[in-house]
């Protein structure tokens, strides 16, 4: 943990994209700090840069200017290996469209992050523990019966719960969710939000992007992104 108690901190983040001949500046100096145990919802209109900000905070993308610090360490100074480790251990992503691997079953999708940094021998040694952890997560998410199913055999809500299980597999410090209910009906979406609330109560830091204020109200803190900047 950094001295100022922030787990994740963004300072002066700017990001622009080229769209044809024009350059669109999406983020124009975003400052943001996430504390341990926070449940933050970032809201804003479509195209306001919410997802871009989330991707930058999770080291899936890099800012044009500005610094992202995790536990006080500047992510731009991390090696490729360090960033891979950061994405594997420190953050967990939940996407709007679930993004599960079709070739793997539910259980395998959940324990995939735990396999990522293990050699064959390392996997053989730890597979029982890893599989037990994945099975526990599926039980918590109410998917025990679906462990051996393929993603295409699940409903949207079930797929999103699998994606949450995968994101939580390595016990990340921060859960980053990009429109996690955006592709679900209201009832199913509420179920997902309930899971987030319970996780947060248990101490999980969550940062969620949504365009729906009703959903954002479930979070402890709401940040509004407008015109490339944060307006609390």
């Amino acid at each position, binding site marked *: 943990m950094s001295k100022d108690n922030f787990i994740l901190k963004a300072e002066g983040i700017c990001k622009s994209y080229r769209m044809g001949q024009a350059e669109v500046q999406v983020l124009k100096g975003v400052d943001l700090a996430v504390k341990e145990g926070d449940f933050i919802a970032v809201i804003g209109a479509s195209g306001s840069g919410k997802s871009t900000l989330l991707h930058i905070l999770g080291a899936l993308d890099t800012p044009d200017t500005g610094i992202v610090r995790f536990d006080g360490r500047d992510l731009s100074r991390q090696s490729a290996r360090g960033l891979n480790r950061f994405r594997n251990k420190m953050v967990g992503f939940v996407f709007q469209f679930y993004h599960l691997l079709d070739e793997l079953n539910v259980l395998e999708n959940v324990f995939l992050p735990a396999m990522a940094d293990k050699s064959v021998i*390392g996997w053989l040694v730890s597979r029982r523990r890893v599989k037990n952890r994945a099975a526990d997560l599926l039980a918590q998410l109410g998917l025990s019966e679906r462990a051996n199913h393929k993603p295409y055999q699940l409903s949207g809500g079930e797929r999103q719960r699998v994606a949450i299980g995968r994101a939580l597999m390595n016990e990340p410090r921060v859960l980053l969710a990009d429109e996690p209910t955006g592709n679900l009906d209201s009832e199913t979406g509420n179920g997902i939000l309930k899971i987030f609330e319970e996780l947060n109560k248990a101490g999980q830091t969550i940062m969620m992007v949504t365009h729906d204020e009703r959903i954002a109200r479930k979070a402890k803190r709401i940040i509004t992104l407008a015109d490339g900047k944060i307006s609390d």
Partner: protein
Amino acid sequence: MYKIILAFRYLLRRRITYLAVLAVALCVFAVVVVMTVMTGLLRDFKAINHSWVGDCVVSTDTLVGFPYYREFVKILEERDFVGSVSPVIRSYGILTEPSGWNTSVEVMGIDPVKHSRTTGFAKTLYYHKDWPADAFKPDYDANLPGCVLGIDKVSARDQRGKYSHYSSIPRYSFTITCFPLTAGGALAKAGLGLVNTRRFYYSDDSHSGLAKVDGAFIYLPFADAQALCGMNGPSPRASAIHIKFKAGVNLQTGRNRVAKLWEDFLTGRGGGKQANLLSKVRVETWKDYRREVIAAVEKEQIMMMAAFGMIGIITVFIVFVVFYMVVSHKSKDIGILKSIGISNRDVIELFLGFAFLVAVCGSAIGTAGGVLFLEKINRIESWLYDHYGFQLWNRAIYAIDEIPNKIQFDIIAVIIVSAIAVCLVGALIPAWQAARLKPVETLQVNQL
């Protein structure tokens, strides 16, 4: 571990990869079959040549021959690395039948026992197979002067590569006419009818497997051939000395030792009668002695290998296209994997592992199919000939009995390793492109 699991799942669940496996399998199948047949042909051809020549030959190209061969044979026979030695007369003559019909022949004078110890001569005989002592004794009258004819001189090869023989040797005679030469190369009987002619009786035939030999050669007793060619003067001459080394003697080492003996022998005979003929004598291994005919077959094999190299390039391209398509379809997976912390190197390894599996499966199918096909290739060809008159080689023309189909595991190993390398090369660029994909781009909504 996930790389192995995902590579297997991609292989089993992506139908497009079946196309890549099929391409590799077909390529491996074709190369296994063609290389086995071509290598078998070359191996058999070399073995036949080796058998016909022996290990080493001391010879001259001139029709005059060279003197002092008996002395050198004695020197060779005393050496511990020499197994056996056979002096030979080589010349050209005319075979004339009683009807007056005649044809040119290559005359080879040999001692059948010595020559059989040195070469595979005894095994080429039909009526005296492995019993060469009587090769020049016609069964119907052992006192008559016998000769062994190249099999194509007495029997026609049928479409299945078989020769017909009488159950016992037929009484058949003809005359052999040679042009005896002096040591200086002039006609020895100028003004006296020029030629030497003698009647011989057919005592056996020789099937060496070498088309030019079996179609042109006639084997005579050494002394008779020497007399016919005018090489039996006060200083008798021979055309060649065939040598077989003892078991375990390296071919080149043996040849070098014979060459050294010949050099020493030459030094000692420098001022002797007809010594100028000795300078034209060469000492060669059987490979060098027959290089003209072997090189042609080797060249054919190299051309086939080049042709199959082109097939290899096509396979690289097919694998490249298939993997390019697979990577295009799997860009979302790559984004997902990167979002959970998988490195570029891991992505490359995943797709190369996938290519490796494609190569292994394709190679296994292609090799199994090739081996099965080779096992049945002669039966298949026979069936095709019976039903459609098709033959890979016309046995009436080519001196090939069966299509060589002996599986050579070293060649198969090289083909499999090459197929794997080809697949990895074909998959390398798509794998590298996959690794370079940015996760944010592949996970965009419009990518779905």
